[in-house]
């Protein structure tokens, strides 16, 4: 029996090591390529013949607006995270705690709206933004506005969490003379820390990958690009050979803070995606 178990464990370790190699291989490649000194796109060896920091120097050099793009994305991500969280909390509280006419209808119609493919409406949104002067030069606030405007429809997870907070707490507070606003601010929000962190984390990570709409709104105005738009262009341009290692370097710089943040808050993320089914 014992020997069988040991053999089983050895097999399990072997499988896990293989899985880990497959999963880490692209990232290792990415890091190594970002330090490669030789010119060219994908090369047929993994470890660079010559290590150099040229790619990173280029990103921060005068010929490249990488810092600008990075800040654009950071600004978008921070604002989207803050505003989305506030909006989602408001909507979730109203839908979870208040009972009003048309509540069910509202929830169902938002569910149906969510089934329309998002960027079908891209052209229309573009012209709405243009009307407000929020395209090209104003793409950064424009993108924030678009991401935030419909964020209320993502109430689902947060409302589910609010539903698990006992109603008797609310009732006790009402008897003590608290208004609904006070209950939300003083009681519900402090009790919902995990789900608030989850909402903010997801909202913060999304803009780093936003390619489709960002490329459309900022079209042709490179000062307003975000990192995804700018760096995707590098890979798809004709000068892919020259930009590939720079893309890798930029990718590393984007990935490190986002990944670190995610890893630090992973616990809350799991709690969020499992809808609070798992506690601790």
């Amino acid at each position: 029996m014992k020997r069988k178990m040991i053999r089983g464990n050895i097999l399990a370790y072997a499988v896990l090591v293989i899985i880990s190699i497959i999963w880490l291989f692209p990232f290792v490649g990415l890091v190594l390529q970002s330090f490669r000194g030789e010119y060219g796109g994908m090369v047929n060896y993994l470890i660079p013949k010559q290590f150099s920091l040229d790619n990173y120097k280029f990103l921060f050099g005068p010929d490249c607006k990488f810092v600008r793009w990075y800040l654009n994305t950071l600004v978008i991500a921070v604002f989207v995270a803050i505003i989305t969280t506030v909006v989602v909390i408001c909507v979730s509280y109203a839908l979870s705690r208040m009972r009003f006419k048309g509540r069910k209808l509202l929830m169902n119609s938002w569910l149906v709206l969510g089934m329309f493919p998002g960027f079908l409406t891209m052209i229309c949104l573009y012209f709405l933004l243009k009307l407000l002067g929020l395209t090209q030069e104003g793409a950064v606030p424009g993108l924030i506005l678009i991401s935030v405007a419909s964020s209320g429809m993502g109430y689902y997870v947060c409302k589910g969490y609010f539903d698990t907070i006992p109603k008797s707490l609310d009732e006790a507070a009402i008897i003590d003379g608290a208004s609904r606003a006070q209950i939300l601010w003083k009681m519900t929000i402090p009790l919902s820390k995990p789900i608030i962190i989850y909402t903010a984390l997801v909202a913060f990570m999304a803009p780093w990958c936003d390619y489709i709409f960002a490329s459309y709104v900022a079209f042709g105005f490179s000062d307003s690009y975000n990192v995804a738009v700018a760096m995707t262009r590098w890979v798809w341009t004709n000068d892919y050979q020259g930009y590939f290692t720079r893309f890798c370097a930029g990718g590393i710089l984007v990935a490190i803070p986002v990944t670190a943040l995610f890893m630090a808050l992973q616990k809350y993320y799991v709690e969020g995606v499992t809808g609070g089914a798992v506690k601790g």
Partner: protein
Amino acid sequence: MGKKKGRGIGAAFVTLWEDIKDIFTTFKEGDWKTRLSFLIMGFGELMRGQFARGLALLGIQTAANLFIVKFGWQYLKDFTTLGTVETHKVNRVTQYGDNSFFILLYSLLTIVVIALLILAWRINVRDNRNCQRKLSAGEKLPTNRRDLHSLLDEHFDKTLLALPMLGIFVFTVLPIIFMVCIAFTNYDVDHQPPAKLFTWVGLQNFKELFGIGTGGNFGSTFFSVLGWTLIWAFFATFLTYFLGMAVAILINKKGLKLKKLWRTILVMTIAVPQFVSLLYVGKMFAVDGIVNAYLMQWGWISAPIPFWTNATLARIMIIVINLWIGIPYTMLIVTGLLMNIPSELYESARIDGANAFQMFRKITLPYMLFVTGPFLLTQFIGNLNNFNVIFLLNQGNPKSMGLSNGAGATDLLITWLYKMTINDSNYKIAAVIGIMVFLVTAIISLVVYNAMPSIKDEEGFQ
């Protein structure tokens, strides 16, 4: 279901009729303040000292009327034709004509404003009636202070939802209505404002989709892309689900060390932005990519494998690489849930002589399917519209002769739609495809949702 709907519509008509009757009685029984409020919104409230409500209603009326007169009407009057004056040249100077795009967009906006005005007007009438009844019954009206405070208390939902609903309305609902309208027009590369006009064409675009009365193979392309979209969504959802579960069970194995490390390694793919990881992985499998290079160095193959240029291979690759993204996600969710299964269940099964596979099939799997049913559905819907994986890996290529409108072998409906909008400016067809995507999503959601064990039998595992 149908019967219920019929009753719903009937009920709606009854409500509407009651509403209209109520408006008339309010006018008949109303005093002069109430009656004048039918014309000037908020008048009654202002005269009765309820300034907060009165000013709000009056403000809405003024703003809406100004909007309609100053801005909306000039577009709304052309709504049926979407403009008649083409842009033309007079003495070599361009004279801009009507812009169909703006006529359609702003007309819809104006219609919405009118609808909101009617709604506000109705609230205004009802409020006047209520006030009058209260006064004649000798009750006191709520003070302004009380009114404003109620927005933070019993009417707090209105305060909370006002801005989010406005946002969703302007930036989601309005654009969707607009795009649905576009599906019934001839808005494409030959009819682009401001130079050209477009106009209503009825069901023409839908006829083209189903191949009625047109020679092109647009219809067959649509169904071929739809077929691949469904295949993709099926494999992408269920393969990642079962393999992810397998990995989670493996890591959960008793006596295995470094559980946290294994999980962290896998979770990297969720954390790293997809445009970085997927673009890199896409390049890895290119003809001159590192995978082909190593396979050739080791002498396993003599010529590079055309991962992205062979249609079947490209499809398989996309599903496989999606596992790389998807397995960690499932693993993360399943790991927590596995711990929720009572261990006594396994103990007693073991005593009964069940082997590991039997235990998985009889205990683990039913429980998982029950709990993660809704999650699977959202995953499936998400995969139907999974733009990132397809587009970042190979942009829907390779192109094929059998497909029209620029579709490639690995294009999903959603990436095809994107290409049509961006590359070909074929908005009318893109709108039609968008509506089809919606229908497919809605039908699948409805069918699956009703068949789900956790919906049918809520207490199965409680």
